[in-house]
């Protein structure tokens, strides 16, 4: 009970902001299209949810993020570990990583659209390409941070190369890897929404653009706030997951 009360107190400024929004919208100082009252936005949200538009497009968007991010974690993680373990992989991949790291990932939107069109494929490829590098770097730095003496002892006790990698290096690489994935998670939402806003026929970003050009601004605000909330929620859930995963580190 106490934690709920303190959370309520902590987040009360957000409530105040929402109230201020409602009052400003109802005061008539602004055009109702530019600043619809929160209560009307909530009603529009319920309508969208009832029609099924919201669920359908949310599912489309979540599938794209999930698939793209999943692939990025898989490929990026393997590449990062490979770079940490085999000199050859590092020599070959380091310049590629270095060259592509500063590249603004959103600049790939037109390329993936050119290659795969306006559908799921181009978004998944975009998110995968964009989110891979933070994961690769996390895995690489994490694996390098493994205690060398631990690794040597494991090897001298007769553990095979693969075995010592699995038992010694992987666990000590986990914190850095999870950090890289957190960056990738945030990035995946940014890439998803921007690509859906720019070129798409489905998904939450598309829905925002569609409702906006239709002039149904209450519904547009409802979807904008929904996307922002999903991004926030994903980050918080991931944070909780990381805290549980790393609980063994004192």
């Amino acid at each position, binding site marked *: 009970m106490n934690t709920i009360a303190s959370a309520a107190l*902590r*987040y*009360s*400024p*957000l409530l*105040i*902001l929402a109230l201020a929004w409602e009052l400003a919208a109802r005061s008539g100082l602004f055009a109702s*299209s*530019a600043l619809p009252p929160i209560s009307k936005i909530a009603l529009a949200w319920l309508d969208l949810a009832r029609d099924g538009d919201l669920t359908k497009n949310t599912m489309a968007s979540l599938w794209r993020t999930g698939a793209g991010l999943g692939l990025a974690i898989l490929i990026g993680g393997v590449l990062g570990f490979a770079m940490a373990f085999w000199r050859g992989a*590092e*020599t070959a991949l*380091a*310049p*590629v*990583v*270095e*060259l592509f790291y*500063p*590249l*603004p*990932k*959103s*600049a*790939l*939107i*037109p*390329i993936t*659209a*050119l*290659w795969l069109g306006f559908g799921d494929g181009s978004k998944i490829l975009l998110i995968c390409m964009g989110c891979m590098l933070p994961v690769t770097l996390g895995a*690489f730095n994490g694996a390098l941070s493994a205690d060398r003496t631990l690794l040597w002892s494991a090897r001298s006790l007769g553990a095979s190369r693969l075995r010592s990698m699995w038992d010694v290096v992987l666990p000590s690489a986990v914190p850095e890897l999870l950090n890289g994935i957190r960056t990738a998670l*945030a990035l995946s*939402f*940014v890439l*998803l*929404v*921007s690509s859906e*806003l*720019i*070129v798409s026929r489905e998904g939450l*970003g598309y829905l*925002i*653009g569609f409702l*906006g050009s239709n002039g149904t*601004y209450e519904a*547009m*605000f409802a979807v*904008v706030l929904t*996307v*922002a*909330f999903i*991004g*926030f929620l*994903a*980050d*918080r859930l991931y944070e909780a997951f990381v805290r549980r995963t790393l609980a063994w580190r004192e």
Partner: protein
Amino acid sequence: MAGMSAPSPSFGARAGQLALRWSLVIALFVAWELLTRTRTFTPFMLPSPQSVLERIWRDGNSGDLFINMALTIYRALAGFLIAAVLGVSIGLVMTRNAGLRWFLDPVISVGFPMPKITFLPVIVLWLGFYDTAKISMVVFDAIFPILTATIAGVRSVEKELIWSARNLGARERDLLWQILLPAASPQILTGLQVALPIALIVAVVAEMMMGGYGMGGAMIQASRMADSRGVFAGIIEISLVGWLFVKAMAMVRARLLFWHAER
């Protein structure tokens, strides 16, 4: 990446590293050229590096490249500077004023992990399709890392430092300018270093969505016309600007923090 942790490599080693790095970049270009020569990919999927470079050269001569680059850089930098001034000053005031801290803390912690770009259509609704909207979007996105870095930086200033300054009769204003700001500047600069690439990306995405002049607008136009050379030329140009931004920011940091032992 190789040798990044080396304390201070000798000149010879550094030159060797530089040569290695460049030869690998050149090798990448050669691989790209080979992939297109052998027709592994069609010129539409992956235009040859030569044709892309020719395209950049042509855009450069016609002046389009200059206009688009200048506009994008202007929008990114204007937004970044506004975000820097606002972010650092709001952050500083937040550390000195409990009321403001109470009010803004949850707003920042909720706003930071949100994909801010989602609000682009709202900003267009309020401000229209012109520079004001694009720059506002950049400010909205770039301000968060600066704010959080400033708050964390000021909080990490040693208490003893503040106490001794107070003891020596420093007023609140002197404390701010002569103790807090300099002591927090390494972290603030890190925040600025994070924010600058974000500013560029957001400017490009805003241009892609709204169209018109600018590197993002030119790229999305090329993509809609199925002009793959134009798209690849755009990627190279944007990467170049991004790289220049990162380098410039690192130089500014080295200049301003010459007194600070870095790593």
